[in-house]
């Protein structure tokens, strides 16, 4: 547990000092909203379309951030140092996933209001509680899969290519569930609560992949 906290503290401090990943993710999301605006040629969108735009933007921003997750370890020899230390290896997975989750949450604090301002037709305020619940579950899945994919890709030659091509298909079920859960929320006369079915699927996805990632992460680290 203390290992997790130590690695997490290191990652957060690194980000606070360099401001490398988070601003890039936020800028990427804003640019994507602008692109969607011109792509659809619509001033305001609602319902399933809005949910899709938001989910896809966050998904790509997450993959962008995930690509940077292990770069410091790779370049500064942090993997070797971690392997030499007498600590549970899964601590690295947990710490990185938590860091990724925090990055995503901060990103959404910026990106979701911006989305409400720039693209969303119906007012964001009353939909916020439901949306936060959906996005929290989605972030969990994104953090776990992002960390896992990033840990695989960092050791490959074409790592910038490998992470997205593996990550995107793996995240499709989460994307479906998130978009479908957020769709009714963002509709013009939507209800305040997201559909339970999709919340349940999203939660199932999170739990299953968190367990699997925890089970296999060990094998990615040993050398």
């Amino acid at each position, binding site marked *: 547990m203390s290992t997790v906290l130590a690695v997490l503290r290191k990652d957060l401090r690194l980000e606070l000092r360099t401001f490398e990943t988070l601003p890039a993710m936020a800028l990427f999301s804003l640019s994507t909203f602008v692109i969607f605006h011109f792509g659809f040629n619509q001033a305001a969108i609602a319902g399933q379309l809005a949910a899709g735009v938001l989910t896809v933007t966050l998904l790509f921003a997450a993959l962008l951030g995930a690509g940077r997750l292990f770069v410091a370890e790779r370049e500064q020899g942090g993997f070797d140092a971690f392997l030499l230390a007498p600590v549970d290896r899964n601590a690295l997975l947990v710490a990185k996933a938590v860091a990724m989750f925090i990055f995503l949450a901060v990103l959404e604090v910026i990106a979701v209001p911006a989305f409400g301002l720039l693209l969303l037709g119906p007012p964001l305020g009353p939909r916020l509680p439901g949306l936060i619940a959906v996005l929290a579950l989605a972030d969990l899945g994104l953090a776990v899969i992002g960390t896992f994919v990033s840990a*695989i890709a960092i050791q490959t030659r074409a790592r910038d290519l490998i992470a997205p091509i593996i990550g995107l298909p793996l995240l499709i079920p989460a994307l479906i569930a998130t978009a479908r859960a957020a769709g009714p929320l963002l509709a013009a006369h939507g209800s305040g609560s997201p559909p339970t079915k999709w919340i349940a699927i999203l939660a199932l996805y999170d739990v299953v992949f968190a367990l699997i990632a925890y089970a296999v992460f060990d094998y990615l680290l040993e050398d």
Partner: protein
Amino acid sequence: MTTFGRGLRTLVLATVLTIIVALALVFFYAPLDADQGFIQKIFYLHVPLAIVSLCGFVFGGLLAIGHLRTRNRAWDMRSYVAIHMALIFGVGGLITGSIWAKASWGHWWDWSDPTLTSFLIVLLLFATYQPLRFSIEDPERQARYASVFAVVAAAFVPLNFIAVRLAQQFVHPRILTLGGGNLPGSMRLTFLVSLLGMALLYATLWKYEMTAKNARIQVRRLRRSLLGDDSVRPLGRSAAPS
């Protein structure tokens, strides 16, 4: 070194026999489908291809667990060949499914069919297996990472099917509930024989490929010991285990 060729002949004979029987049943025994007519004959090809392909992916994941547990690279090769064959079967299943969709619904692709859609997603995921291997040079790490990927991707298969199945608003009539629940008896028999034939074909090709790979590795080894290291072309960048 194990001999993978043992029993291959028996397997080939069984496969050929079953496929001939299956084809005979499909075209001369099974009645025409009341709704679909002659076009339904594709079903006996497409569905077994898809089922065997999916089982092949999961099979590859199970073999990958064997590699992670034992660290024996032979398991990695088995897993590689299983996924490799399943990909080939999967592409076949996708193409035949597309032809069926065109004939019976008028479109080459139909997003409202959950099985077709989730099958595409699974195929997209497993299509990254080879690029992933290709991108890792160290053979030991290549085997390990590929196994980890195979395990995760195999677990992804059922979860993906749940999500996509639920995502469709209206679902096409399930002509097939696994095992052919609501088919008339003669059609079910035909389908099951076709499925058996396809599974045997998969097993045969898997075994054949393993035998071929094994033979190549032995020849390489002989060349190295007889003609020296220089006579063996360096393996270089390869996606295949060696």
